[in-house]
């Protein structure tokens, strides 16, 4: 393990402070940029997804969870073998990771943590909108959010006219709508009527019936929509099952199964976005990482620091971006969890600034109440 603490965070933000923010208006920025967030509910284990290489302490504490054949990233970090697509994209500078990162929440409750990962706030349930919704609204990007779920996720709330895609198990004849459309008269029926308009204008490909538990099909359609220059600019996927208290396993355990799901979605998005992948950022989001030590059931408990998996053509380069805190007992959070040295909201704020062509400083104020979130655009993304 050759990682040492690095002080680039300060360097990054100072540079920006001196130079000011001048968004470049180029052909590239005229192209629609997509931001895709994949929520990993239950607490994704950053050390399983992006394990440190050769850390004796980790080996000792996780005897039954150690990965045998990790994919190679660099001298410090490997990659879980189920995250193949990220490895492939890594070779092309289209995958990167932020490690030892989390939202500023240390309470270890899924319930509160998932609320905070979506609102971006400090106190659970205090905010009723999501950081992504507020970011879209502040950037005046309306009606461009697509949720791959039936309820509108909290993450996207705060901006009106979002679309969602989560087809019913059987085909719905949308001609039924034509038969009653004209019955929606008067101001009090405006909202339903305009939503019926949205449905009627949906491309044929969205008018399907499917098993919405099959995330592959949903991802395929999302890719199709995102590829369209006039389509959505933001998509939100939801995965759960990362709460592996038992039989977490290594290469082939319960956590691996969940990572495989992430891999599938990103693979489909990559294959089907085509050129648009160059103008896309895919980021994962989770409520916390997991304990270093395995438990009696060869699983792990709720922890703190985790990792963000990133893919897309808007990444600056392949890298594991981290201010590595170390895994010695005194370096752990409360002596048990990987610490978080990067507020993951800084990553999301910077990603929004890139994808929405917005000043990160402005977004930080509008979306995150002016919290101290360094601009990481220069380090992580193509400006």
């Amino acid at each position, binding site marked *: 393990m050759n990682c040492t603490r690095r002080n680039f965070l300060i360097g990054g933000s100072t540079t920006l402070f001196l130079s000011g923010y001048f968004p470049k208006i180029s052909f590239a920025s005229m192209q629609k940029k997509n931001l895709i967030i994949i929520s990993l509910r239950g607490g994704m284990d950053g050390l399983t997804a992006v394990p440190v290489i050769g850390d004796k302490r980790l080996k000792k504490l996780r005897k039954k969870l150690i990965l045998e054949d990790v994919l190679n990233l660099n001298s410090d970090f490997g990659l879980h073998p189920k995250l193949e697509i990220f490895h492939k994209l890594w070779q092309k500078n289209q995958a990167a990771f932020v490690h030892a990162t989390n939202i500023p929440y240390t309470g270890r409750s899924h319930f509160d943590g998932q609320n905070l990962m979506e609102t971006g706030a400090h106190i659970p349930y205090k905010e009723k909108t999501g950081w992504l919704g507020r970011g879209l609204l502040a950037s005046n990007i309306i009606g461009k959010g697509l949720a791959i779920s*039936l309820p509108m996720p909290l993450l996207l709330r705060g901006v009106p006219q979002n679309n969602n895609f989560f087809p019913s198990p059987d085909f719905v004849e949308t001609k039924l709508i034509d038969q009653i459309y004209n019955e929606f008269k008067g101001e009090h029926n405006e909202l339903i009527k305009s939503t019926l308009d949205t449905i009627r204008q949906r491309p044929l490909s969205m008018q399907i019936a499917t098993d919405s538990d099959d995330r592959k099909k949903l991802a395929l359609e999302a890719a199709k929509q995102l590829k369209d220059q006039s389509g959505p600019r933001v998509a939100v996927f939801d995965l759960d099952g990362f709460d592996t208290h038992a039989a977490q396993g290594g290469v082939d355990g319960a956590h691996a199964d969940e990572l495989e799901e992430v891999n599938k979605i990103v693979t489909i998005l990559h294959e089907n976005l085509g050129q648009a992948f160059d103008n896309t950022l895919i980021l994962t989001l989770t409520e916390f990482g997991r304990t270093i030590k395995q438990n009696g059931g060869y699983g792990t408990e709720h922890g703190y620091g985790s990792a963000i998996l990133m893919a897309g053509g808007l990444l600056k380069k392949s890298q594991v971006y981290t201010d590595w805190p170390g895994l010695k007992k005194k370096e752990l959070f409360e002596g048990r969890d990987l610490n978080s040295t990067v507020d993951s909201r800084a990553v999301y704020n910077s990603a929004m600034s890139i994808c929405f062509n917005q000043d990160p400083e402005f977004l930080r104020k509008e979306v995150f109440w002016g919290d101290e979130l360094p601009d990481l655009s220069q380090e992580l993304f193509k400006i």
Partner: protein
Amino acid sequence: MSLNFYRRVAFGLSPNENPDKDPLNWAINQLDTIPDLLWPGTIPTEKDLRKKYGEWVYGDREVLRKKFKNDKHAYRKAKDELRIKTGERYFELNEHAIRHFQTKYSKQPVFERFWLFWGNHFAISEKDFLAEFSTGPYQREIIRPNMVKTFEEMVLSVTTSWCMIHHLDNSESFGPNSKKGMEWGETINENHARELLELHTVSPNAGYTQEDVIQLAYIMTGWAHKWDRKNLETGDIWFDQEMHQKGDKIVLGVKYKNDAKRELAKVIHDLATHPICIKFVSTKLCRHFITDEPTEEMIDPVIEAWNKSNGSLIEIHKAVITQAYKYNEITHKFHPPEIWLMQLSRMFDLNIPLSFEKMNYTFKSKPNNRQRQLSWILREIGNSPYRAKQPNGWSDLEVDWVSPELLLRRFWFASVELPMLVKSGNRSHDFILACLKNNFEDHENMASLIDNFRFGTSDYDLGQKYGVICNLPGVLKI
């Protein structure tokens, strides 16, 4: 008076009910007593189900996880067997049946609407295994009996219920100067205190500060699960003096002297009778029954009834209904998917929920599709009642329920699923026309929209008819 009043305050009229000569009286007379639960099948107690909860959670946590630590497949299989044995996949289905049986057959449907309202005001959101084992009994045993008492009594009952305390982590809240707090270096968990202020009583309109939240959390420390090795967190609720923060507390400018378990009832009295609480909850009631943005003119008489009766829920409910009646012709209200489904079931006498004989469960295999049907439909239309995502419950605002997929799901239900729920004697066109006539002034216009299919009685034909009727503006909304 329009027939839509029966949907505004209840679930519409079933084929064997007729409009009353005096709809206002009809509605108001339903509020004085608690109607019996009509479900002829099993109605387990909260305590029984908590035992099952324990069997499931500890059976998995302490036994299976250790036993199968090397084998995820064997672990999953054993876990599924435990699921079946403890009814983990069954009890929520049974609770949905109990609930929907009530809204379909109750002779006091207006009371049942208020039951749904309060269950959602004091919502238990999706957490741990509450929806599987506890939220249903909580609705029956905590919310329901309090509906003929005062608001204050209801708040106190809810706040000290096992379900709410588990939901909002009060068992993990220790007074930092309490015996256990000092010994274990523990401190407060503010969740429950914050929601008691924000959602259950005074709302942020009261302008409370973070310090108020902390002080209220201090008062609430000690109200917790009774832990022991056998029960762990599924023990009863008690007041643990050794967790309770010592000293006086000040909430919203009122001082509460150090008085152990009696502090809670005192602060709840002050919160539940606070003018801002009364206004907040009255507004929510009017929002539910009248319109999304009720005016002061609509709300004021409810506040007045509240003050006059010292918070008697019977009187408050009557005032709400009186206002709903008064504004019936000039306001509109959108109904969320579950109420819409309940109304369709009552108006068209659909074959849902399942009969109690068929709902009977053997604890030997997975519940069958028919047993799962109602819960599955609720999930597919996006409104599984005991699985709100947040402690603020399901939204009562149209804007939160009108997304493309959520509307499409209603078309899906009405045109694809509903025909399979039509009883064999009710497939004729005349039956539909009679139901429409019983519930809608403009039934002739509605009938004209489905006239093309008047000779059809196949599932497809019924789907065409119900797909149209159930999604008309006057059915989605009143």
